[in-house]
């Protein structure tokens, strides 16, 4: 049984500023360090748990009832869990869904994710909103706050750290699975190389469903190697953490600009921004959820988007000719997209592949194939 009824061990969540939450252990026993962030999606905990972009983070879900439909084969965004810790109000061991095969607590144990349940996640969320995201530790092994605090101080922070290396694939591979529910596939007309900084499967599925033949390459792959695959276009994937230390990917991107159409997603946009000579900065508590309105400046259309990022491109720092902002976040006015028509690249800070989240922005995949099509036609 879930929540307060289960006779489980204790656990604590300690933040770097000394704030402590006492709860019960969930998932694996042990301790895990990371940046604590909150995600406001109601559905989609499985996709969140398997999103490589959460590498190095402890995620708390603002929706209090997590695990209701268990874990469903085929709904994951990568081969396992990448986040370090998970914090919820009530984890349900009861699962109800015709496709589900395991329950959440069991899966977390199997994936060695250290979790905590039964804490006031809203209080935690408010704390992070007011004070900014915090480094923290969740532990069900050592419950002594003093000793945890000492180890927390030693633990590495997220700024300046290359987390992409921990999640990127080690060798190139082909991807062929289409998006969920897409039975009839268009013929594959475009060769696309995806630079894997921690790519979510749904980006790959969407590309296949849009008529692309997809090759995924490690983030450290050099531009020349990529060009030798004769791609029609290149996708810079999403991924975890701070873009600044990713000098190799930035360099690769710089060499590809203008040579092939480029589509950047999330971390991909930040890498593009840095490659264009711009700067990135850290947001106070990031954007993590599935309900942010983003406006397409050209059309005025609003998409409800999936967001998951702690860093952002500073548009003012980009002096690159022809490059302009295309999308804006209506919550806080931050830049959500940029493009350069002449140089044939565009990117968004949010997740057009959704998963979890609304499908409003999936039109961007057609925009990418159109861009490749125009070039091929020309």
């Amino acid at each position, binding site marked *: *049984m*879930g*929540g*307060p*009824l289960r006779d489980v061990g204790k656990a604590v969540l300690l933040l770097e500023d000394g704030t402590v*939450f006492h709860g019960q252990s969930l998932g694996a026993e042990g301790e895990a360090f990371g940046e604590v962030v*909150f995600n*406001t*999606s*109601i*559905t*989609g905990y*499985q*996709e969140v748990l398997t999103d490589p972009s959460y590498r190095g983070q402890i995620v708390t879900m*603002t*929706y*209090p*009832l997590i695990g*209701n*439909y268990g874990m*469903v084969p085929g*709904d994951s965004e990568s081969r396992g869990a990448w986040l370090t810790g998970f914090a919820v*109000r*009530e984890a*349900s061991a*009861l*699962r*109800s*869904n*015709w*496709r*589900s095969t395991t329950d959440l607590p069991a899966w977390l144990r199997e994936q060695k994710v250290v979790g905590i349940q039964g*804490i*006031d*996640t*809203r*209080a935690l*969320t*408010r704390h992070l*909103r007011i004070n900014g995201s915090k480094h923290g530790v969740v532990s069900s092994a050592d419950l002594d706050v003093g000793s945890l605090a000492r180890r927390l101080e030693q633990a590495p922070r997220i700024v300046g750290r290359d987390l992409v290396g921990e999640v990127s694939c080690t060798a190139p591979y082909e991807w062929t699975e289409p998006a*969920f*529910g897409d039975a009839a596939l268009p013929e594959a007309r475009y060769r696309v190389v995806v630079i894997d900084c921690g790519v979510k499967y749904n980006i790959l599925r969407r590309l296949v469903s849009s008529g692309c033949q997809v090759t995924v390459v490690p983030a450290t792959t050099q531009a020349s190697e990529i060009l030798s695959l004769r791609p029609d276009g290149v996708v810079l994937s999403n991924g975890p953490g701070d873009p600044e230390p990713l000098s190799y990917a930035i360099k690769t991107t710089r060499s590809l600009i203008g040579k092939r159409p480029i589509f950047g997603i999330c971390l991909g946009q930040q890498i593009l921004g840095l490659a264009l000579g711009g700067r990135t900065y850290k947001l106070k508590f990031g954007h993590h*959820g*599935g*309900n*942010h*309105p983003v*406006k397409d400046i050209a059309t*005025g*259309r*609003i998409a*409800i988007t999936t967001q998951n990022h702690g860093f952002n491109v500073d548009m003012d720092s980009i002096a690159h000719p022809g490059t302009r902002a295309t999308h804006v976040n*209506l*919550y806080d006015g931050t830049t959500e997209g940029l493009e350069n028509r002449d140089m044939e690249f565009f990117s968004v800070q949010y997740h057009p592949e*959704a*998963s*979890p*989240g*609304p*499908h409003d922005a999936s039109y961007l995949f057609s925009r990418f194939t159109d861009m490749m099509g125009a070039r091929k036609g020309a």
Partner: protein
Amino acid sequence: MPRRTDIHSVLIIGTGPIVIGQACEFDYSGTQACKALREEGLRVVLANSNPATIMTDPEMADATYIEPITVPVLSKIIEAEKPDALLPTLGGQTGLNIAMQLAENGTLERHGVLMIGADREAIRKAEDRKLFKLSMEAIGLEVPRSGLAHSLEEARETARRIGFPLVIRPSFTLGGTGGGIVPSVDRFDEMASRGLSASMISEILVEESIAGWKEFELEVMRDTADNVVVVCSIENFDPMGIHTGDSITVAPAQTLTDREYQRMRDAAIACIREIGVETGGSNIQFAMHPGTGRMVVIEMNPRVSRSSALASKATGFPIARIAAKLAVGYTLDEIPNDITKDTPASFEPTIDYCVVKIPRFAFEKFPSADPTLTIQMKSVGEVMAIGRTFKEALQKGIRGLEIRRPGLSGSDGGVADQRLEELLNRPTADRLFQIYEAFQRGWSVDRVHRATSIDPWFLGNISEIVDFEATICEGNVRQAKQLGFSDQQIAARLGTPESAVRRLREAGGILPAYKLVDTCAAEFEARTPYYYSTYDAEDEARPSLRKKIMILGGGPNRIGQGIEFDYCCVHAAFALREIGYETIMVNSNPETVSTDYDISDKLYFEPLTREDVLNIVEREKPEGVIVQLGGQTPLTLAVGLEEAGVPIIGTSPDSIDRAEDRKRFAELVRTLGLRQPENGSAVEVKDALDIAHAIAYPVLVRPSYVLGGRAMEIVYDDSSLEHYMRRAVWASPERPVLIDRFIEDAIEVDVDMLSDGRTCVIGGIMEHIEEAGVHSGDAAMVLPPHTLPHWMIEEIRRYTRLLAMELHVVGLMNVQYAVKGKELYIIEVNPRASRTVPFVSKAIGVPLAKLAAKLMVGMTLAEVGFSQEVTPRHISVKESVLPFARFPGVDIILGPEMKSTGEVMGIDMDFGSAYCKSQLGALQNVPVSGTVFISVKDKDKTQQIVSVAHQLMHLGFSVASTSGTARFLRANGIEAEVVRRASEGAPNLLDLINAGRIQLIINSPSGKIPRQDEVSIRSIANARGVPVVTTMPGADAYAQGIRAFIRGELGVKPIQRYHVGSLLR
């Protein structure tokens, strides 16, 4: 896009009376719309016949027509007002239907009125079940397989094609009457025939039954730029086959994976686009097969609905307000989210709590109605509860229902397992408690799931509650509270009084934390203090240091306590805010205006129990708490709250008790030298008989401490009295049966009065049209009295004043009297706001509830500017609306037990016109020609009925009667044709009614136990929409109404013009 500049005035059509399926949620949405449009500087014209609404308050619109919602009346309003636009999507189904008729008959076009929000085409595509199915198929969405049939043969054919089980839905019936689920071929012919004959056009939809599938709803908003957002998802605890209005529902959806949810969201967006609802909110229902994920669309409501109100309260996103803004041209991103102020409305709310809605039923009022829950809605109200878990919200919801359950608890422990399984299989209002019972017996989730088809996740949560309950001890009280257990439940387990649990909690620091409903799961700061309680760590309540008053609302609507009380609470909030108080509203009813976050300074969405109210009082420490406006619910809390030290303002709890307690009240009446019907109380049959003999039959019997005349009966002889006493198994020395002399053929009078403790002023004196014995909530009434002599009215004033002074009433008081010849009897005193307060306020142009609130904080009548009774020159008639159409076969006779769900007001310069408007408003056909059928009991064979018959003959009606009445009428010079009774063979009266040959029925019941053929006359007439009048004064009023109608004298006039210059605000 900014606001359109071609629209300067907008017509909004309200829903009219509260009926099952259309309740005060449309006052909430209409009120929001009025406010939103007036903010834009638009002239708002409003039509609604329901006086108990906030939207019909004179300051809500520029011109408010409290007139019947009919096509001719609306045409007149349009002619007079020439609005630029009509917004049809905020007034429920009634508003939508009338708007469609006005579009179809060319009225709108003729006067250049634009339909905004949704146009005719879109409405038709959504409302016509066949067109809707075609539209869904066109965009690749599945719908249940179905076919239309016009004959039994055709229906059988369709059934063969589709297979069993099936559902049958007659087209064009009131509220789906005659429909139902057909499990197998055995009952098909019977049910199909019933459906065909119920349909006015002999058409039924035969549809694949998907009962048992999971049911979901999405609330969708669209703007003119084609941006679409989903405001909320709702999952039904009760699966398909039980109307969503009768289902327990939960927000957000709990058991959908993100993929499933997004697929549903995509479908909803495609649906609103295909149907073409241009702007505003729509509700789309889906079903999903639990074993395969097959998803079908059930229906779309192209307007705000009951579920939109729920979704608004569940998320904090004001759907109706935003819909109104979108309709006049704004896009979602141009409208700020009121709760955060800094973010726009173009987003999807995300919530960090669980919301449970539980319907409230009234089957106890209709013992012969079928209590099975099916595809036709039967509930009369609902409660909503918010918690951090489903378990907590469910238990809070149950105790908020006010059905004497402190939380989840058992039903009949005595039934055998097999019987329990059958009960679980056949859903009724009690099923939740039968599920509890099953888990108590150790049944598995799986077994209960097989019997109920309820999703195992919900059942599993309930079984966790049951398991935990058995372990409750002093050491786990905090966990118990987190699971939603009330102190009362815990006390029962620990074997201590409730107060001991409270002390235990306080000592252990186990106190509720109040959290905000903020649309965004704390991602942004919320500016609007809308709270719910939970047992989590952080308390976000921010009590201010201002002077503050707490107002206790009325909880879920039920027959006897509805929108009128919510109206009063809202007025108190307005009034107190006006004079500088901070106002705190406590209520649990999501349909209401009072639970709109911008009505009071703070809103606590909480059950109205002693425990929950005390918790808030302790946190907020208000200067005063108002208990006299929310109906009986807060009033019954008064004594307990005062004992706990809560400052109750207004009439003191002791005075309340003096009025409510029979013994104390009898004494008070005696001291004042007033008169009350002779009475007594008894537990034993013998004592009851002795009392009845002493005061003489007929007597009125009832349980003590009941509401709305529950189980109240008029008893004419010993054997009926014995029968009643034997059924009254609950009777005990603390709760005896009350026996009163029944005052026959008396005129009943209602009085509402205001007092500041020193002086008092009468608000209104209403003369009932039906005689005493018809519950005041069901009777029609006239203000000012139309037959009472002047001296009697003086006497009524004197009595009322004496009572008010003796009880030191501060605020409102209501007295009911019976006038028998020259004698005046007090029936009862209600030391609180009554159901008639809004009606009186609108009739006299004085907001009584507002003034009452000011008196309660210490102002005097002189200070609030009300020192003299207002006797208007116009006539106002209040008529009640009854739910019989929903309960086929139930006798529609009126009695001392209240059965109506709503009311309307007819207002005009003469009685006939006002009465006629009240009938039209009450959705009655007022016939202008044809045949009137008259059949009355011997006692009613008097000059009064002769005069009624004369009047009708003069107006061109012919008269038909049963033999006895015909003989009497003929002897008095009226040509009455004799019609056979049903028992006398064919063709008989029933055939005539069915053939549409009878236009009006005047039929008074012949005794306590009405004859079966009378019951069927009345229920068939009711099903056919033929008006039935069951009392002689009613018949007289009806004749006058028809005369006014025939003469075509019915004009329309906004309420503002009835009270020019006299309006106290």
